[in-house]
């Protein structure tokens, strides 16, 4: 039965996309129903696939394939590959997608283009599930780009406003820039291997067909794509702007699933990355730097979604860091837990935004009483994100910290500092949004309807319990023989101090006001401005685009018009002028022609005479 029946998992959402686009478009609630029905079945099938793996074992991947195109030398397939990684990802993607689609019934209830919304969401789910199930590089790349375009369409969902239209373009072009590396890496390895297939290439890598240096180049190029998709420094700039999209979309695509595709890719191609220590080092350093870099920026953001966006970047950094130091299972486990609690946080933020009609935390405040469900679930998500025991994030983050400490103390320091920042900024969000007195936008706030509360509660439960699956998860991912690393209680007790310290600092600043945060901002003005302006990375890119790319483009356009085409027009002008001048030779007077004939003859004779003399 498996994995053939899994074709339905991506096929059903795709079918929903087609049906909504062609048939149910005028009936928006029907469209929503079609989409939710499709993803529900996909969810059940995914659960079935995972339980199948848990009982039947996941050591060898199960693969079915179909020929996609074939020439004399090329042979490309599309297929389904069921193994531990894809089985887990299927469950993550369909769970979050189902929650988000149910939640959207409430959040987007007043949206006239609901059909378009659910059509895009369904297309996204189909592409993402196709990506997860990919059997080969080409399929991975194809689905990779398709999720990118769905992200583009959904960020720009409210296309009649400037900011979403711009943010959508920025997201697509930035990730495309990374994908250039992916494409080149893919071409390199597939040309060398004569195949796109993961299994075949893995066998060749294992057989030592290529040197570590060459593999490292390929891996780093592929990682460019992962860094773009997973918003790693320096390609992170698109993700905060992507918050212009509807909040449920941010939860699904820009927190739980698509942005994690980069991490998934590195895990999927771990055989390639782990063959090159240099490539692993690159992944680890980029991940570690991203983790702290984004966490620092998140400290001073005022937009609740942007805090979460930078937090996502930071957590993706942790996942990359884990992968880079060799902890494939640890990185994937953080992906797994993060998907639930970050989706929860975004949906909670969406609930708040739905109630207050603003993204600015400083206009909210005092929502704890008015929105208790949202408040308590948000707190659960925040504790999970901060890594407080026994919430899910604790298990996954602790595993990463423990692993990094053994490998690289500098990166470990960065990771601990990032963890401190995480706890602090989440405390800040909770204090400013939910505690204290109600500010302008909180006046008429009320709790969200039950369709939005139910997904919050389910995800909150998952955020609490998902961590306890740690040992089972590692066994599944690493295969039966590998002994899962247990929880190191002593280490955990020490690292628990870090989030607690962050929470304490947050409470002191934003509840007790001692020291006063505004005074601190003034005192450390240069640092504060640097963070507030997000290290000026966006400004740098704008400058490059404005000053270099666009000027280059304008210069070439001028060159084309005036030099290349100028030459063409010049030839035409020359021809015309020659004609104009030669026209005067045509006088119509016989005497002139006779003169020319005899003159010419005389000259020819003279030449013949002179030539003859030699």
């Amino acid at each position, binding site marked *: 039965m498996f994995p053939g029946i899994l074709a339905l998992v991506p096929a059903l959402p795709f079918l929903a996309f087609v049906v909504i686009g062609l048939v149910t478009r005028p009936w928006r609630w029907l469209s929503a129903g079609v989409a939710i029905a499709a993803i529900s079945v996909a969810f059940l099938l995914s659960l079935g696939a995972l339980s199948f793996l848990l009982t039947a074992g996941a050591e060898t991947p199960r693969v079915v394939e179909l020929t996609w195109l074939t020439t004399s030398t090329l042979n490309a397939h599309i297929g389904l590959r069921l193994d531990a990684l894809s089985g887990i990802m299927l469950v993550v993607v369909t769970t979050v997608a189902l929650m988000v689609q149910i939640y959207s019934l409430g959040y987007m209830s007043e949206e006239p283009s609901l059909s378009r919304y659910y059509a895009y969401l369904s297309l996204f789910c189909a592409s993402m599930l196709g990506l997860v199930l990919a059997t080969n590089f080409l399929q991975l790349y194809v689905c990779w780009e398709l999720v990118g375009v769905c992200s583009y369409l959904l960020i720009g969902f409210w296309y009649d406003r400037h900011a979403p239209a711009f943010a959508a373009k920025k997201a697509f*072009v930035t990730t495309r820039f990374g994908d250039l590396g992916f494409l080149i890496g893919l*071409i390199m390895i597939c040309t060398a291997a004569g195949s796109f297939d993961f299994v075949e290439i893995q066998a060749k890598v294992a057989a030592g067909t290529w040197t570590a240096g060459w593999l490292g180049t390929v891996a780093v190029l592929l990682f460019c794509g992962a860094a773009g998709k997973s918003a790693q420094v320096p390609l992170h700039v698109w993700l905060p702007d992507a918050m212009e999209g509807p909040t449920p979309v941010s939860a699904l695509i820009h927190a739980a699933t698509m942005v994690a595709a980069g991490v998934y890719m590195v895990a999927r191609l771990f055989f390639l990355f782990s063959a090159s220590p240099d490539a692993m080092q690159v992944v680890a350093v980029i991940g570690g730097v991203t983790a702290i870099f984004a966490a620092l920026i998140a400290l001073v953001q005022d937009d609740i979604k942007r805090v979460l966006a930078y937090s996502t970047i930071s957590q993706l950094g942790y996942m990359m860091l884990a992968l880079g130091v060799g902890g494939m299972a640890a990185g994937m486990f953080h992906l797994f837990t993060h998907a639930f609690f970050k989706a929860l946080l975004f949906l909670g933020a969406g609930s708040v935004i739905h109630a207050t009609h603003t993204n600015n935390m400083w206009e909210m405040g005092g929502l704890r009483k008015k929105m208790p469900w949202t408040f308590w679930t948000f707190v659960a998500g925040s504790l999970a994100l901060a890594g407080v025991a026994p919430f899910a994030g604790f298990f996954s983050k602790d595993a990463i910290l423990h692993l990094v400490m053994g490998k690289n103390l500098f990166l470990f320091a960065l990771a601990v500092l990032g963890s401190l920042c995480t706890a602090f900024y989440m405390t800040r969000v909770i204090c400013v949004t939910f505690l204290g007195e109600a500010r302008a936008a909180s006046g008429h706030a009320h709790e969200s309807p039950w369709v939005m509360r139910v997904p919050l509660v389910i995800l909150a439960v998952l955020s609490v319990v998902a961590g306890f699956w740690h040992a089972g998860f590692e066994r599944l991912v690493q295969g039966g023989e590998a002994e899962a690393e247990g929880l190191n209680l002593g280490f955990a007790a020490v690292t628990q101090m870090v989030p607690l310290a962050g929470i304490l600092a947050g409470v002191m600043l934003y509840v007790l006001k001692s020291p006063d945060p505004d005074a601190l901002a003034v005192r450390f003005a240069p640092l504060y401005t640097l963070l507030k302006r997000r290290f000026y990375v966006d400004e740098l890119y704008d400058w490059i685009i404005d000053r270099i790319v666009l000027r280059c483009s304008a210069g070439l356009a001028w060159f084309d018009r005036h030099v290349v085409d100028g030459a063409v027009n010049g030839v035409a002008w020359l021809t015309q002028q020659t004609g104009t001048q030669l026209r005067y030779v045509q006088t119509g007077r016989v005497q002139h022609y006779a003169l020319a004939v005899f003159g010419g003859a005389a000259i020819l004779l003279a030449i013949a005479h002179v030539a003859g003399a030699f």
Partner: protein
Amino acid sequence: MAAVSFTVIGLVLAALAGFFGYQAATATPFWLTDVMVLPLAGGLIIMALQDKYARMTKWIAAAFSLPAMLMCIGLALAFRIDGAGGYQFAEHASWTPALGISYSLAVDGIGTAMFLLTGVIIFAGCLASWSVEHRVREFYALLLLLTSGVFGVFAARDLFLFFLFYEVAVLPMYLLIGIWGTGPKEYSAMKLTLYLLLGSAFMLVGFLALYFASGVTPLTFDMDTMLKTAYSPGFQKLFFPFLFLGFGILAGFWPLHTWSPDGHASAPTAVSMLHAGVLMKLGAFGIIRVAVELLPIGAHAWLPYFAVFTIVNITYGALVAMSQTDLKYVIAYSSVSHMGIVVLGICTLTDAGLNGAVFQMFSHGIMTGLFFALVGFTYGRTHTRIIADFGGLGKRMPVLATFFTIGGLASLGLPGLSGFVAEFMVFLGAWRFNPVLAVIAAAGIVFTAAYVLRVLQRCFWGPLNPHFADITDANRVEILCLTILAACLILFGMYPRPLVSLINSGVVGVLARVGGGG
């Protein structure tokens, strides 16, 4: 007048009936000639119509181009890919034996793919011209005549015939742009025609050289005979550039491309569609069919150098497109950029590269047809093509905006649409040929993404320009036209296997004759 008109129409119909009847009676179908004759007959009937039947003209044009399209689809389905592939549906008739000229037609996988492209584009083009009001008769007659020429080139197996059809395809452009165009149309028409005639002159030199140097007696224009002729290396290296550049002008080869932006921008919608969609492919087709196949040693000697120019095509075309202010110029420069990918694929002389090149010929033909149709429809409503004047049109024209998005995404090589398959195969071929060129070419796609999305954002997204508050969306004819084109992009993007297999059966033959890398 009416009598003459009816007599002519009657004669054409009778001839057509006789021709088809003969084939049916003797059970010897001339498939290729049939496809070619249909537009021609339609054009003749339209010419004979009286002016007052302007509306009927459009229906007649559609009635003749629809069966042509369907027959092209039929040809593609009937083409036998298994086994040798090779040339099929061959027809041969003696024409001017004294000079070695014959009427011989046949198509391989490449030619069949181009037939399919032409069939789709001409039918879509007829639909896209539904709003033409000025001299409708002449417009459609010329359009259909041109199409017959295009079919002829893709099927000709005799160089003289090839040249003849080529000129039939190219020359009506002068009138079509000069009369029905917009903007500086006389200048553009003149420039385009003279430039392409310059190309023809180069080609003619090459053709005559091939003819006289073949050394067979009696001399012949037959291409199959020429294929068997071993031209000396010196001869090949001398005359290859003539043929390559002669065709290259029509394929938009840098720096001989500047006829294209002006020409495409000035031309009426259907003419831009046909020109960028199909005629530019004649250039690329000629490079494969004549220059490369007949002069393989010359090809191996020269193509590595020409490949560098195609890189300029790709990146330079994309960068120049980025700073255009007129929507049609953006599309025109994007054609220059995308045709660079076609010629690059040919230059690699690899299996993947050539397959990609021909696939891109098909894909770009459809895509650019879609784009020019969209620009035409938008212009018909807004009466402007300046990007800065638009804004938020998607709010009022969601259907056109959706199709524009599909075209745009195909153009930036989004997987799932046909452009990706083509570009990917070309990059694979280019990597085997020269990795540096492949990397630069691939970098060009980032610029493509930037300018395509910029156009989408400025024209269709953002707040609606109040000036266009009561603009209407696409009508049924327009939707049919756009749907046909978009369906091709999606179909062959999602499942490229049938088209790739068809093309590959031709590419195998080319590589066997030329001898190229695997």
